[in-house]
């Protein structure tokens, strides 16, 4: 205890230097913690978006589709599969989807895109595209009576969804993004044709534009359109025979309120489906690319954290070394009075530990308001991330928000603390190797 008292008093001997060193530790912790929270939040956002629009928490699909999303890798008798899953998980939202790549053509132009064949009512429970139409309707309704300052915002809101979301039994409806509508020069009610390669043949499906949406990310809106599953089912044929597949879809997705115990749930789902031609995957298994991207991001993050950590090590090393050199005579006195070399080292380590602990705690406090800003306001990355804001047609919110990553506290906090101890090893050993008589002669 007296060692810590001595260490604390030594730190307070040069307050400004201690304050600056502590601030360096605090700033590095705060920077890394904020980076971790932001990375954690943005990845969670992408994962949630992908789970909503791509895989569900669980997905039943063709065994090869996770690695190679070919159009012919289908789930036949998909309604049976969906029904079995819904009976097994009555509280879950089960929905079927098919994704078809093709050309959407109007009399004036064509546009290459992904068309997602969905069950509109079920899809509306998990994705947010239909909300754009509801919000736009509400904005239009409020527009006439709205005061001037809010009219511009309402106008923008109203333009995000023209027309309506798809009806469940609509076999000819399609909802397209605003950029596609501009390219094709079409409006609500206009006819378009979806052309897709099926086996060796090019097949066409006539459709009518029911809705035009705008998420705010034009690059994503330019490549995704929605129609009903029944509308695209004729394009999902057996690749060998060219014969229709009974009630096909590309996947049957299951959405839960949470993702606890997914592996066990996947096992139950597989048992319920009981089909050897299908595999049941958790979202982690179904989206290996997403996970790989996440791991690469995390690795780069760790490298960045280590570099910042090294800067901390240099700062603390310099401070403690300076302190050791300044106190050479005093260290000689301490040894003359009977402090063993190990006590001298312990004193330096105690100083480093207090500095590290104080700096880390200060860094934690310092980062909270910035974290709050990033968590509640976020950063609008807009077009900057548009190229990577869709995965197989999934649109993400361009406003990235931080989420509290417990690792920042439980991994980087102790890491910062250990770094300060590491940085003190050299100065501590240098001080403890002095001989009392030489040290006391030092001026």
């Amino acid at each position, binding site marked *: 205890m007296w060692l810590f008292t001595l260490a604390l008093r030594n730190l307070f001997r040069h307050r400004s230097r201690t304050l600056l060193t502590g601030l360096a530790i605090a700033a590095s912790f705060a920077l890394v913690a904020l980076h971790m929270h932001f990375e954690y939040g943005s990845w969670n956002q992408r994962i949630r978006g992908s789970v909503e629009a791509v895989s569900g928490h669980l997905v039943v699909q063709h065994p090869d589709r996770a690695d190679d999303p070919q159009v012919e890798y289908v789930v036949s008798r998909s309604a049976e599969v969906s029904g079995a899953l819904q009976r097994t998980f009555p509280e879950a939202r089960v929905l079927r989807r098919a994704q078809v790549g093709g050309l959407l053509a109007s009399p004036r132009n064509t546009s290459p895109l992904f068309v997602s064949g969905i069950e509109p009512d079920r899809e509306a429970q998990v994705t947010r595209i239909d909300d754009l139409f509801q919000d736009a309707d509400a904005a239009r309704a409020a527009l006439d009576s709205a005061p001037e300052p809010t009219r511009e915002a309402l106008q923008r809101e109203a333009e995000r969804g023209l027309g309506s979301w798809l009806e469940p039994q609509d076999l000819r409806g399609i909802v397209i993004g605003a950029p596609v509508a501009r390219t094709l020069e079409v409006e609500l009610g206009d006819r378009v044709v979806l052309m897709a390669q099926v086996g060796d043949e090019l097949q066409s499906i006539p459709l009518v534009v029911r809705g035009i949406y705008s998420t705010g990310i034009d690059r994503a809106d330019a490549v995704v359109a929605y129609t009903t599953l029944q509308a695209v089912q004729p394009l999902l044929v057996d690749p060998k025979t060219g014969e229709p597949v009974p009630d096909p879809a590309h996947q049957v997705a299951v959405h839960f309120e949470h993702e606890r115990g997914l592996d066990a749930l996947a096992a139950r789902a597989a048992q319920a489906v009981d089909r050897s031609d299908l595999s049941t995957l958790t979202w982690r298994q179904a989206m290996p690319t997403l996970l790989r991207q996440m791991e690469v991001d995390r690795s780069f993050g760790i490298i960045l954290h280590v570099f910042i950590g090294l800067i901390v090590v240099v700062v603390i090393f310099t401070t403690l070394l300076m302190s050791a050199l300044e106190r050479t005579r005093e260290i000689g*006195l301490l040894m*003359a009075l009977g402090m063993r*070399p190990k006590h001298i080292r312990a004193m330096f380590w105690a100083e480093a530990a207090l500095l590290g602990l104080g700096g880390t705690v200060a860094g934690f406090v310092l980062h909270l308001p910035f974290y709050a800003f990033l968590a509640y306001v976020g950063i609008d990355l807009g077009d900057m991330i548009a190229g990577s804001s869709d995965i197989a047609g999934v649109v993400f919110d361009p406003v990235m928000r931080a989420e509290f990553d417990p690792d920042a506290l439980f991994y980087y906090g102790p890491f910062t603390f250990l770094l300060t101890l590491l940085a003190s090893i050299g100065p501590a050993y240098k001080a403890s190797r002095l001989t009392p008589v030489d040290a006391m002669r030092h001026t």
Partner: protein
Amino acid sequence: MPIVTVRGLSRTYTRGEHKVHALREVDLDIEAGEFTALMGPSGSGKTTLLNLIGGLDAPTAGSVVVEGTDLAQLSAGARSDLRRERLGFVFQAYNLIPVLSAAENAEFVLALRGVPAAERRERAHAVLAQVGLKGLEDRRPGQLSGGQQQRVAVARALAGNPAVILADEPTANLDSTTGHDLIELMRELNTRDGATFIFATHDPKVLDAARRVIRLVDGEIDEDNRK
């Protein structure tokens, strides 16, 4: 049996290409309870002899035995232990720990020994009172005069009841009155408590007070007089 036995003690320093013989084959016995002054001109080897007796420095040749323990046989850590447990030091330039109060300085050696806080605080207050510093226990060295700081150093040396107190020019930086008071104090402690004192000094007042005066010249004992 002497409390300190020095045999054939030599210490040679190398300064560039030159060798400086600070001590040359010194033989000396100090009995328990002695009040001994080492005198001699600057560079005669007084401080070197004190440092070697205190285990702060290692001899080039010869041996120092303190209470039957040959310092040459001890590791650096064990020499630290011996200084902590059996020796007390009063240095010329006060040498207090600046971040500790007078009481904390006085109890420092006891803290190193692991004495419980309450016990060592009580002892520190007692020795500070003994050296006339009652009421100044909470002052830092910077808030004390030179004489008061040297008294704190004496209190620190006494707090652990050491077998031998080694004092290197303890009055050199004090005015004559303060120096005199300090000598009286140490003499009183020697008489009353039987503490063994070995001084290195030029101060005639210390020499007057000493019961044994050893004169060193060029690293050798020139005279050894008991009063």
